[in-house]
C-alpha cells in the first residue's frame, strides 16, 4: 500500500519539495543581510526586510490551509469522483489500512516540509524578533513549530471534509472555512490560556520594554495596594506638579511614578515562555488532528457504504 500511496502522491510531493528548497535557500542567502542590517543601520535598513518578512510570514500562515484544501480534501474525493475507490477497496487490504497509509505518507511529507520552512523562517527572522515581540502578536503563528500543528490539523480536516462530502470543490471550501475558524478561535480565545502566566512588575507609564504578551494589569501604589488608573494620575500630577503645560507629560509621569513607587502588576506570557507556548499550541493542534483522523476512520468504516 505504501507503494501506491507514494505513487499517487509523488508528483505533488516533488513540487512541494521544490518550492520548499527555493524558499529555504532564499532565506539562507539573505539571512546575512538581516543580521548586518540589524547590527549597523537599525530600523531604516530593516524596513526592506520587513516587506520580505510579511510576504513569507503570510505564506507560512497560508501553507497549512492550502495543504488541507489541496492535499487533504482530494485524498478521498478524487477516489469518489473517479470512482476508483471501488478498485482500491476491493484489493486484499482493509479501508482502515488504506486510509492510514495514505494519511501517513502525506503527513510525513507535510511535517518535513512545513518544519523546514517554519524553522528556516524562524532562524531568518531572529534578528528582527530580537527587537520585536514574537509571542504577543500574530507573528507567533509564523514562527517555531506551531505551523507543523496547523498543517496536520489542516490535512486531517481536509480529509474528513472529503470523506463526508465526497466532492472536491465542496470539501475544499468546507476545509478552508473550518480551518480559518478554528485557527482564529484558538489565536484570539484559547492561546492565552494554554500555559500559566507570569506576574511581573512593569512601569505604569511609558513603554514596558517587556517584549512579552501582557494579558491584564492593575496599578498599585508603593505599598502594593491597588489603586485606580485615574487615582494614580491624580496622585502623580499633584505630587510632581505636572500640568498640561509640562514638557513631555508622559515622560514626567513615568519619572514621577518611578519616584513614588507606583507601578503595574501585569499578568504576562514573557518572551522566555515562547517555546513553552509553542509546545502547548502544537500539542493542541496535533491532538485535534488525531481526533479528526479518528472520526475520518470511523466515517469511512461505518458511514461510507
Amino acid at each position, binding site marked *: 500500500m505504501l507503494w501506491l500511496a507514494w505513487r499517487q502522491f509523488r508528483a505533488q510531493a516533488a513540487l512541494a519539495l521544490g518550492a520548499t528548497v527555493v524558499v529555504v535557500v532564499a532565506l539562507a542567502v539573505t539571512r546575512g543581510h538581516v543580521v548586518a542590517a540589524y547590527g549597523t543601520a537599525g530600523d531604516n535598513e530593516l524596513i526592506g526586510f520587513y516587506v520580505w518578512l510579511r510576504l513569507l510570514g503570510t505564506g507560512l500562515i497560508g501553507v497549512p490551509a492550502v495543504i488541507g484544501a489541496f492535499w487533504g480534501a482530494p485524498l478521498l474525493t478524487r477516489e469518489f469522483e473517479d*470512482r476508483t475507490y*471501488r478498485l482500491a477497496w476491493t484489493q486484499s487490504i482493509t479501508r482502515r489500512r488504506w486510509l492510514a497509509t495514505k494519511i501517513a505518507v502525506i503527513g510525513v511529507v507535510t511535517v518535513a516540509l512545513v518544519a523546514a520552512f517554519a524553522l528556516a523562517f524562524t532562524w531568518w527572522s531572529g534578528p528582527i524578533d530580537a527587537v520585536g515581540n514574537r509571542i504577543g502578536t500574530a507573528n507567533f503563528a509564523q514562527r517555531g513549530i506551531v505551523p507543523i500543528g496547523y498543517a496536520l490539523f489542516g490535512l486531517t480536516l481536509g480529509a474528513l471534509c472529503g470523506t463526508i462530502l465526497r466532492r472536491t470543490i465542496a470539501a475544499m471550501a468546507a476545509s478552508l472555512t473550518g480551518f480559518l475558524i478554528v485557527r482564529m478561535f484558538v489565536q484570539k480565545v484559547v492561546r492565552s490560556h494554554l500555559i500559566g502566566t507570569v506576574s511581573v512588575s512593569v512601569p505604569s507609564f511609558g513603554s514596558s520594554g517587556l517584549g512579552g504578551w501582557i494579558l491584564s494589569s492593575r496599578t498599585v501604589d508603593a505599598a502594593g495596594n491597588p489603586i485606580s488608573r485615574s487615582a494614580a494620575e491624580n496622585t502623580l500630577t499633584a505630587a510632581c506638579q505636572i500640568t498640561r503645560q509640562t514638557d513631555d507629560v508622559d515622560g514626567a509621569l513615568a519619572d514621577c511614578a518611578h519616584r513614588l513607587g507606583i507601578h503595574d502588576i501585569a499578568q504576562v506570557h514573557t518572551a522566555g515562555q515562547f517555546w513553552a507556548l509553542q509546545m502547548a499550541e502544537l500539542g493542541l493542534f496535533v491532538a485535534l488532528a488525531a481526533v479528526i483522523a479518528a472520526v475520518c476512520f470511523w466515517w469511512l468504516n461505518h458511514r461510507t457504504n
Partner: protein
Amino acid sequence: MTAAIEAVAVGKRYGRTWALRESTLTVPAGAVVGLVGANGAGKSTLLNLAVGLLQPTEGQITVLGGRPGSTADELAKVGFLAQDVPLYGGLTVGEHLRLGARLNPRWDMAAATARIARVGLDPAQRTSGLSGGQRAQLALTVAIGKRPELLILDEPVASLDPLARREFLADLMELAADGLSIVLSSHLLADVERVCDHLIVLAGGRVRLAGDVDDLLATHKVLVGARRDPDRLTADQTVIQQSHTERQSTLLVHTTQPVLDPSWTVSDVGLEDLVLAYMAAPASSAYVAGPTLRRVG
C-alpha cells in the same frame, strides 16, 4: 460445501429509496451465475453488497462463509470488476499489475504478466489511453491476479464491441473451467445464456427468479389449450403468466411433475421468455430455488 453467496432477507436503502428488498438467495460455489435485470433493478447494489463496498440496511449477506469486506482475508477471497471499469488514469498498465502485487498477498505476477501480453496490452501505456475492451481486460487481469475464490463482475461487457465481448466471455468460461465461482451481471440475456449455468433475475429491487438454468427450464412448461380458468390446474402447477384469446388459453406454469392432462399441448420454454415472464409477474410469484427447492411469497 460453503455457498459462494448466501443472502437472507437482504435490503439496502439509499435515503428513502429501497434499491434492494427482502432478497433471499443462495449462489452455489463453483457456479457461473448470471444476474439479470433492467437498469435500476438492484443488480449493482447486490454485487456491491457482496464485495463489502456496501453494507446491508437489513438482513444478512455472507460470502464464502464470512462477512464480505470485513477483513483483509475476506477481501482476498473475492475479485471484483466494478461497473464502468475504474482504473487509475495516471498509472500505466504495468503499474496496475504492481498495484495488484502490492495489495494482494496471493498475487500471481507471472500469470498476470502473461495475460496482459496475450491480450496485447503494452505495460508501459497509461490506462487513460486504453479502449473500452482493453480497460476491461486489464481490470479483469487485476481482479483474477489476486487468485480469488469468487469473481464478481458488474456489467463487464457493457462497453465492449461484439467481438471483444465474445473473447471476454470465452476468457470467463476458461476461468470457470478452472473451478472459479463467477457472478456476472448483465442486461443482455444472450450473454448470460451463453456462459451461465445459474440465473438470478431481479426486478424492482426484489429477487424474482433464482436457480440452476437447466432446472429452471425443466420445471417450467408452456401449456396451450382450449380456453379455461387457470384455477382448475393441479396443485403442483403454478401459473406465472397467462394469456387468453376467445377460444384459447396459453399458460406458463411452474411444475415439478409431468403435465398429464391430455387437453393441454405442452412445450418447453425459452430462457428469454421465462425471464421476461418473471420480470413482468407480481413479486409474490417469485421463485427461488435454494439448496432445497422452495417457493417464496
